[in-house]
C-alpha cells in the first residue's frame, strides 16, 4: 500500500503511540534477559552475585569461561551432542525426504491410509514404559543409536515436507522426466532433491535444534556418563543446586567459590548455545517459510 501522507485521525495517532510503547516495552522484556546473560558471563563474579550488574558489564574477567573450558564433563557432552546432532540430522533428512516425496505423489495407492496412520501418532502414543521396553528388547539402551534412531522421523516435519513437495513439484515435471526414461528414484535424486534446498534447510533447522536441545531421550535411555549429551551435563551443572546453598545459607558464609560457580553458569549458557547463536543469522530467513508451510492444512 502506498500512503500519500494521509493525515492520521486522532484515533489512529493514539493507536500508534500506544502500539509503539507496548512494542518497545516488549522488546526490552525479550532482549534484556538475553543481554544480561551475555554481560554477566564476563563480569566480576562478586559484582554479579551482589546484583550490581545492570546495563553494562563491570570488572571484566574471563574467569567464568576459564572454568567452563576446564570442565571435562562439559567437553564430553559437547562432543557427544555434536555427533548425535550431525548423524541424527543426516538420518532425519534422508528418511523424511524419501517418505515425504513418496507421500506427495497423489497416485500412490494407500496414500491416504498411510497419511492418517502417521498423523494419528501425533496425538496418540503407547507411553513411555512400552517404549522403554522396546528399546531394551532391541538393545538400544545406552547405545549411541538410541539418540538417533528412535527420533529418525518426526511426524510433524514429515507433514511439512510433504505439503511443500505437493505444492512445489508439479506433476508435469515427472511426466516430462518419464519421457526421458527417468524413473521415480532417479527423479527423486536428480530433480526433487535439487529443487528442495529451502525445504532441506528448514528441516535441518528444526531437526538440528531438536537434537541439540534434546534431553528427555537421554534421561530415559542413557545411564553411562561417557555417552551423556550436553543437555544432561548442563542440567547437572546448572540446576544441581537450584535453590539450596544459594538461598538457604547465611550470606556471611558464602564463599568466593559459590560466586564463581554462579558466574560459570552464565558462561556455560553462552558456550552451550554457541552453535545456535552462530547459525541464527543464516537460518533466520527460513523461520517464516518453515512455519508457513507448517500451517498448510494437511
Amino acid at each position: 500500500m502506498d500512503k500519500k501522507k494521509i493525515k492520521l485521525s486522532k484515533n489512529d495517532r493514539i493507536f500508534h503511540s500506544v502500539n509503539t510503547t507496548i512494542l518497545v516495552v516488549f522488546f526490552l522484556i525479550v532482549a534484556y534477559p538475553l543481554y544480561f546473560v551475555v554481560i554477566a558471563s564476563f563480569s566480576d563474579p562478586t559484582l554479579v552475585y551482589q546484583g550490581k550488574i545492570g546495563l553494562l558489564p563491570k570488572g571484566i574477567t574471563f574467569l567464568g569461561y576459564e572454568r567452563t573450558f576446564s570442565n571435562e564433563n562439559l567437553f564430553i557432552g559437547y562432543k557427544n551432542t555434536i555427533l548425535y546432532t550431525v548423524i541424527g540430522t543426516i538420518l532425519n533428512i534422508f528418511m523424511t525426504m524419501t517418505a515425504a516425496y513418496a507421500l506427495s505423489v497423489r497416485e500412490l495407492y494407500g496414500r491416504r491410509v498411510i497419511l492418517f496412520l502417521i498423523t494419528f501418532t501425533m496425538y496418540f502414543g503407547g507411553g513411555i514404559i512400552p517404549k522403554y521396553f522396546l528399546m531394551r528388547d532391541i538393545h538400544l539402551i545406552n547405545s549411541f543409536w538410541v539418540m538417533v534412531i528412535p527420533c529418525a522421523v518426526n511426524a510433524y516435519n514429515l507433514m511439512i515436507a510433504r505439503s511443500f513437495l505437493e505444492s512445489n513439484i508439479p506433476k508435469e515435471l515427472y511426466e516430462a522426466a518419464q519421457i526421458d526414461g527417468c524413473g521415480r528414484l532417479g527423479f527423486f535424486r536428480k530433480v526433487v532433491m535439487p529443487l528442495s534446498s529451502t525445504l532441506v534447510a528448514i528441516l535441518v533447522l528444526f531437526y538440528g535444534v531438536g537434537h541439540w536441545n534434546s534431553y528427555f531421550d537421554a534421561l530415559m535411555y542413557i545411564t553411562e556418563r561417557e555417552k551423556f549429551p550436553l543437555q544432561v551435563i548442563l542440567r547437572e551443572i546448572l540446576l544441581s543446586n537450584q535453590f539450596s546453598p544459594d538461598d538457604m545459607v547465611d550470606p556471611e558464609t558464602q564463599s568466593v567459590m559459590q560466586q564463581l560457580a554462579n558466574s560459570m553458569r552464565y558462561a556455560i549458557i553462552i558456550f552451550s548455545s554457541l552453535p545456535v547463536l552462530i547459525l541464527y543469522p543464516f537460518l533466520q530467513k527460513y523461520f517464516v517459510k518453515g512455519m508457513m508451510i507448517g500451517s498448510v492444512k494437511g
Partner: protein
Amino acid sequence: MSQKIKVKQKRWKEIIRKNWELYLLLLPTLIFFILFHYYPMYGAQIAFRDFKITKGIWGSDWVGFKHFQRFLNSPYFIEILLNTLRLSIYSLIVNTPLPIAFALMLNYCRNRKFAKVLQTVSYAPHFISTVVMVAMLSLFLSTRSGFVNQAIKALGGQEFNFMASPEAFPHLYVWSGVWQNLGWSAIIYIGSLSSISPELHEAAIVDGATIMQRIRYVDIPGIMNTVIMLLILNVGNVLSIGFEKVFLMSNSLNSSTAEVISTYTYKVGMVQAQYSYSTAVGLFNSIVNFILLVTVNTIARKVSDNSVY
C-alpha cells in the same frame, strides 16, 4: 469368483509394478512408524495386565481395569489432574490471544526497521533448550543474586523465593513460556495477515475506518480460520503438558502444584518401577486427549466449517 480374485491380484501387481520405487522410498519410514509408534501402542496392553518381569509382557496376568481404577481412586488423582488442567488451561488462555495481538501490533508498526529487528529478536528464545531456560529462570529469580529480587528489594519489597513456591509455579511456567514462544507462535499469524488482500484495507481506509476498526472488521475475520485451527489443536493437547519443563522446574518444595500427569507417569514408572500402573496413567491421559481433540474438531466443523482433518 476365481475370476474376481484374479482381477484383484492383477490389480495389485499393477499397483506394485507401477509404483514400486515409491514404496521403496517409503519403506524405511513405514518400518520406523510401525516399530517406534505402533508396536509400543500394542505393548501398552501391560496397562491391563499385572506386569511381572519374569513373565514378560505377553505372559503376565490379565487384570482388566485394575490399574485405571487404582489411579482414579488414588489420593493424588485429583491433585495431579487439577495441576495438569491448571497449567494447560492457563497456558491456553494466555497463549491464544497474545500471539495474535503481537502479530497485529507488529503489522501496524510504522517503523518497519524496528518491527523487523523486534521480530528477529522475538524468535531467539524459542531456540533455547529447556534445561538452559530453567537455569536462566533459577539464576534470575534466585533470592540473593537474581536481578529480579534485587529489583524488588530496591523498590522496597520483600525478597521472594520464586523457585520454591507452589503458588508462583504456574505463573512462572506459563509466563516463561510466553517469553520463550510468543514471537515464534506469532509467525503463523503474521503470515496469515499478510495474505489478506490489500484492497480490503484500502476500501476500509476510503470508508474512513480507524485502525481499530480495520483490525476488528478486516484483520480478525481474515485470520479466523488459522485461529480456529490452532485452537482445536491446542485444546486437543490440553492434558499433555510437556514433561521436560515441569520436570526440570519441580523440586520438593513446589511439588504440590508442579506434579502433572506426565511427571507422575515418569516417577511411578521409571523411578518406582510400577510399570503397569504407570502405563495405565499414561494411557488414560492419551485417551482423554484424543477424545477431546475429536470432540472439539467435530464441534468446530459443525459450527464453522473449520476442522483440522
